[in-house]
């Protein structure tokens, strides 16, 4: 019983962090209809930067997100202006290939500059835990979860309560219509891409503590995150939240009661099953498809 509660609690904590990591990916897809395959590489890039900052200055990695978030926001803006905007109207495969190229470039740069080895930021509380009853919750996992909840709350506020957020949602639903009522689609898309990338600032900083990483870790991450947003419905933020919790719980439960070796396969099975059976995921909607464009 304790084992089950432990697995569930840990699953929720992991799921919360997953939700943060996936939120940017699903936001970008929702507005730009671009699957940013480089999202995992952005995370690893930011984790590497956080690790370096922590080692050089001793600043807490989770708090370092105050620095990394605006940096990643700016990085996202630049990437959008230089690369993504050029494949705006092209076939889906082209944007996937472009962002894949970007992911490889980041991996290659990290390979050359930092070397191909595992790293992990280990602040003082790294191996400590909160103990509640018979359950132990690792401190970094709890801090990461809290940071994730805070950022997701902020993201939700920005998207639903501010003009910028409304512009982003309008552009996601109908770029032409949004443009007609005075919302510049390109600027808004750039903003959405930058905000989506900014989430990798906090996400990458948390990752540097929670998950040992190396330059090629991004393949693993992008597969997990794709599993999450495909399950939730690509482009849906609430969907990403639910997908992240389901897969976080699925992962801890498989690891507890099944075998660790197969737990990573869960994500691929989810991707395949959802895309084949219910392409719109849990929260996606099907719209009228016969309207001529």
């Amino acid at each position, binding site marked *: 019983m304790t084992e089950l509660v432990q697995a569930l609690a840990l699953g929720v904590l992991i799921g919360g962090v997953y939700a943060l990591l996936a939120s940017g990916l699903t936001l970008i897809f929702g507005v730009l209809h671009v699957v940013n395959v480089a999202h995992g590489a952005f995370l690893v890039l930011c984790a590497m930067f956080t690790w370096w900052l922590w080692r050089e200055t001793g600043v807490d990695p989770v708090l370092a997100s105050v620095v990394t978030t605006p940096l990643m926001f700016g990085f996202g803006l630049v990437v959008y202006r230089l690369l993504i905007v050029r494949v705006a109207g092209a076939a889906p495969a082209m944007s996937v290939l472009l962002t894949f190229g970007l992911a490889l470039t980041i*991996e290659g740069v990290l390979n050359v500059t930092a070397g191909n080895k595992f790293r992990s930021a280990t602040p003082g509380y790294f191996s400590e835990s909160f103990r509640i009853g018979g359950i132990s919750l690792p401190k970094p996992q709890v801090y990461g979860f809290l940071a994730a909840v805070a950022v997701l709350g902020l993201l939700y506020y920005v998207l639903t309560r501010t003009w910028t957020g409304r512009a982003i949602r309008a552009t996601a639903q109908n770029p032409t219509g949004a443009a007609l009522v005075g919302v510049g689609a390109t600027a808004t898309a750039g903003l959405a891409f930058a905000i989506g990338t900014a989430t990798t600032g906090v996400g990458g900083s948390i990752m540097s503590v929670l998950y040992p990483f190396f330059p090629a870790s991004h393949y693993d991450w992008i597969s997990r995150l794709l599993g999450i947003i495909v399950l939730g419905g690509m482009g849906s933020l609430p969907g990403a939240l639910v997908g992240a919790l389901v897969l976080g719980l699925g992962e801890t439960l498989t690891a507890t009661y099944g075998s660790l070796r197969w737990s990573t396969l869960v994500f691929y099975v989810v991707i395949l099953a959802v895309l084949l059976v219910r392409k719109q995921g849990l929260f996606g909607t099907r719209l009228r498809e016969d309207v001529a464009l």
Partner: protein
Amino acid sequence: MRRRALVAAPLVALAAYPAIRPYDTYQHTVMLLALLLAIQAVSWNIISGYAGYVSLGHSVFLGLGAYTAGILGVHTGLNPFLAAPLGGLVALVLAVAVGVVVLRTRGHAFVIITIALLLATQIMAINWAWLTNGSDGITLSLPPWSRDIANLPFYYFFFVLLLLTLAASAAVRRSKFGTGLVAIREDEDKAAAIGVNTTRFKTAAFGLSAFFIGVAGAGYAYFLTFLNPVGAFSILGSVTIVLAALVGGRGTLWGPVIGAFIVQFASEAATVYGGGSSSRVLLFGVALALVVLFLPAGLLPTVQAWWLRRHPVAVEYTDHAGALGAGPVVVTDRRPPPAAAPRQALLEVRGVSKRFGGLTAVDSADLTVLAGTVTALIGPNGSGKTTLFNLVTGAMRADAGQVWYDGRRIDKLPPWRRGHLGIGRTFQVTRLFRGMTVLENVVAPLPDGRWRTMLAGAVNGHEADRARDLLGLVGLNRFADQPAGSLSYGQQKLVELAQVLMLEPRLILLDEPAGGVNPSLVDKLCGLVRELNAQGVTFLVVEHNIPMVLGLCDPVVVFSRGTAIAQGAPAVIRNDPAVLDAYLGDDWRPPGASSGVSPGAASAGGGAATAVGTC
């Protein structure tokens, strides 16, 4: 002749090189890796270039072939070269099994699935240690031949395999199979509507593209003599394949070969001069991004386009006089017109519904089209007319209700089967295959679903003659060899009509045939419809040009809010208050002298000198 020499010379050089310089072992190795990459890129091109289904996980088939040879070698001692066809077979069988399901997804979903499949296979290869020896990998036996000839057998193995792959790719491109794949790439739903069995075409292309890579995989395993899951099912390998095909020009026969040699040599140069293999990822990443941004079409098509700009072909204009003056055309030269008079229902729609989310586009609609009529379907925008077309032709599945055609139920049939049965349609916004020439567009429809038809030559003499007749009929004969995308909107509408007629349909659904077509051609169009109708072809026409509808069609069915609200002769419909209310608006009055057309005069006069844009 020059073209042939251009192709033959490098191939002869490739074949002769090791014989002339037998001791350049290093160069042989680089070349044979380039040949291996070329095999993969040419194979990839069959599904991802011709059919446009971009796979980012294609090296899964290299791994499958390699592991087949490796496992067989360990357990039976079979030489990997002999196991190679089996490796191809394993890849082919798995590709077909997976493809039947996976190829139902498109765009983003398909790309993601191919990556997921590759990585999932890698995990299975690691975890199924009883079969694959897990992460420890498999060591194959060393080749028995003398070290003096080193890699020459591998070189020629890959060289011959590349020739076979190229021959297969060329054969596909020349057949209706290839035309169908390109049609799928350009517009899959449209391809299905003109009789292309898209499921079979895609699955066959996927299987074929897997087969040669599987065969190559066996040779690759033998060459490496060591296999492990991460190396064999490599995402970077997949990216290299895509990069090679993209650089050379996807969708072309030779582009992937050219691209493979460029990519392999560049990669080798980077390894030797650019700081070793750790920089290879960086190089591939930057190259991939640059190619997507600045050379998305690839080298070969870019050079071809440049050549065409230097040597332009004179563009001519619509042969208007020819179109208007073309003699009567006999379209049903296969089927005799049905015995006259007994007006049976050719198409029956019974209680059909279609919902999109909360919106009910078609609401338990009933509609009967009698054989031999020209039936009109009119109604306000959004009343569900086009959706009804989609349900009849199979582009969409109904949520409820039945569709019967010629005495059989068709609502469960895929679109291409309905095309084969004799239902043709045109689209509201033209949907030609823009990359194909006009003539290729017109011969693209497939009359039946037999393998023989699919593997026949793309354009045979009889078809070409017929296609030219039909193009002459719509006045576009001079455009036969132009890309369809370069035609004006109205011209494309006419080509689409010719394309539908190629199927020799018994029922033609026209979706706003007069929209965007100039008035004299509208007259021509009406005349054509009457002529075909006299030969036994039945029509169902959606059109907003009411004078044209009232003059051409009988009966007229009025649609509103997803269901038929009235049906009758034009004279009855134009005075039906419910229709006027639903469609024409409250302030519309029945025309007296104002429009100048009365249905009687129009049908009697056959379009002689009436108001602009009417019949």
